């Protein structure tokens, strides 16, 4: 091979590599932008405690939609029942999605209510901060996702989440959590818990749009978030939230 041939070949290799690399980056961007622009949305959820009837349909639907193990201790969303007694003791238990709640003994009960919970999709997410491999990240539209191929299942994020929203999926052995049903959002559908809620206790919307149901919800109600002192800036907004809830 003389120098001329060598240089020719080298030119081929370099240019084809460049084209390949350039194409793949472009292709990803195109595929995501074709139908849906992540930068045009910023999602949040509103939950009205006064409306929740604790029927557990959201938990049931979430498990079906997102292939969450059926056993009653893995949840992407769950509903807690708070019972506050007249002596100010508070008991909290998570509903079982398969059976209607028992009739509560009403003796000495000061007040009692249901609190639906899910990943708060924090604006400053501690789980993203602690992930040692960068498997969990925030998308442009404000949803925290877990890359199941990147996650090594170290459980650090599960420890770091102040809301207990994550669990280690026993089948995939990686961390799993609520994604606001991201695969539904991009198709223009609602998260499934919002879709099936019989009392519209859950409201979903885009905070970049004033006309979204969430915008109305946050204007019409006095809004609280869970554990505001941690400065995680949750994007799950509660209306009529009792002071005992944390």
């Amino acid at each position, binding site marked *: 091979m003389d120098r001329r041939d060598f240089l020719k070949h080298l030119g081929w290799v370099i240019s084809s590599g460049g084209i390949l690399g350039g194409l793949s980056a472009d292709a990803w961007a195109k595929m995501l932008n074709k139908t849906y622009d992540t930068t045009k949305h910023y999602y949040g959820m509103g939950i009205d405690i006064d409306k929740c*009837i604790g029927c557990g349909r959201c938990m049931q639907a979430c498990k079906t939609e997102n292939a969450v193990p059926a056993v009653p201790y893995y949840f992407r969303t769950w509903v807690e029942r708070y019972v506050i007694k007249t002596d100010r003791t508070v008991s909290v238990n998570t509903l079982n999605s398969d059976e*209607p709640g028992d*009739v509560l003994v009403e003796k000495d009960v000061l007040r009692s209510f249901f609190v639906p919970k899910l990943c708060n999709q924090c604006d400053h997410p501690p789980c993203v901060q602690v992930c040692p491999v960068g498997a969990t990240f925030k998308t442009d539209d404000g949803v925290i996702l877990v890359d199941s191929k990147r996650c090594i299942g170290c459980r650090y994020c599960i420890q770091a989440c102040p809301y207990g929203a994550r669990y280690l999926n026993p089948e995939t052995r990686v961390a799993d959590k609520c994604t606001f049903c*991201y695969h539904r959002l991009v198709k223009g559908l609602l998260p*499934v818990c919002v879709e*099936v809620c019989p009392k519209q206790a859950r409201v979903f919307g885009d905070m970049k749009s004033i006309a979204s149901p969430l915008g109305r919800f946050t204007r019409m109600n006095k809004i609280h978030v869970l554990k505001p002192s941690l400065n995680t800036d949750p994007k799950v907004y509660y209306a009529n939230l009792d002071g005992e809830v944390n």
Partner: protein
Amino acid sequence: MKDFFKKLPEQAVRVAVVFLVFVAVVFVIRQFIIPPEMKEPALQQASSMEREVAKEIQYAGAQICEQCHEKEPQIKKIGYHRNLSCESCHGAAQKHVENPTEVKPTSPKKRDYCAYCHKYNSSRPTGFPQINPDTHNPRKPCITCHNPHNPKPPTTPRSCAACHAQIERAKAASYHALIACSVCHTAPEKHKTSPRTVIPTKPDKREFCGKCHDKGSPRKGAPTVDMAAHGEKYVCWQCHYPHTLGGI
């Protein structure tokens, strides 16, 4: 230049060759074998989002049901279940949308499904219709009396207590036990069929209570006060709740 290579000891050339091969292997691995999304976080996240987006949906959403089913959504629109999504009761139906003849969604017909929402539970918000399944027509399927697409009480309630049982129970133990609801409230007949749009009246003046409780009123046995001097700034029910035991 050729002299320089010739002068190099053989072992140095071998080391150089090994080194060059090593560099080439590393270059090939980094450039061609490791996928680009493992090197660039932005690409990694994009591919992760791509996989997330590609996940199958199970729940089709309520809008799509109306495209084929005409009757039920029309009935449902006027009833109490108007805001209830079809799939809340019929389950995930995306497979049914894709293959309407082969896959049929579920249709709960037993009592326990309605009980998820309508079984009495004191943590539920007041006003939400609830029953005790042990005493409310035990073992009878709910759908024999109630149409789930437009649920209503099967017969128009005769007494106020059918819906306002809590007030009725409290009143039965109070001094007002023998006074009928209609003495203080006037309920239009339509209130029985559309309870939320037609609302009964409530007393709105002090003089109304004064008819029995003012000094010198003709009613015997009722405790009387001088209405002119007693709490003149307030209306009676700010201090006295007329339904509860003892009257205060």
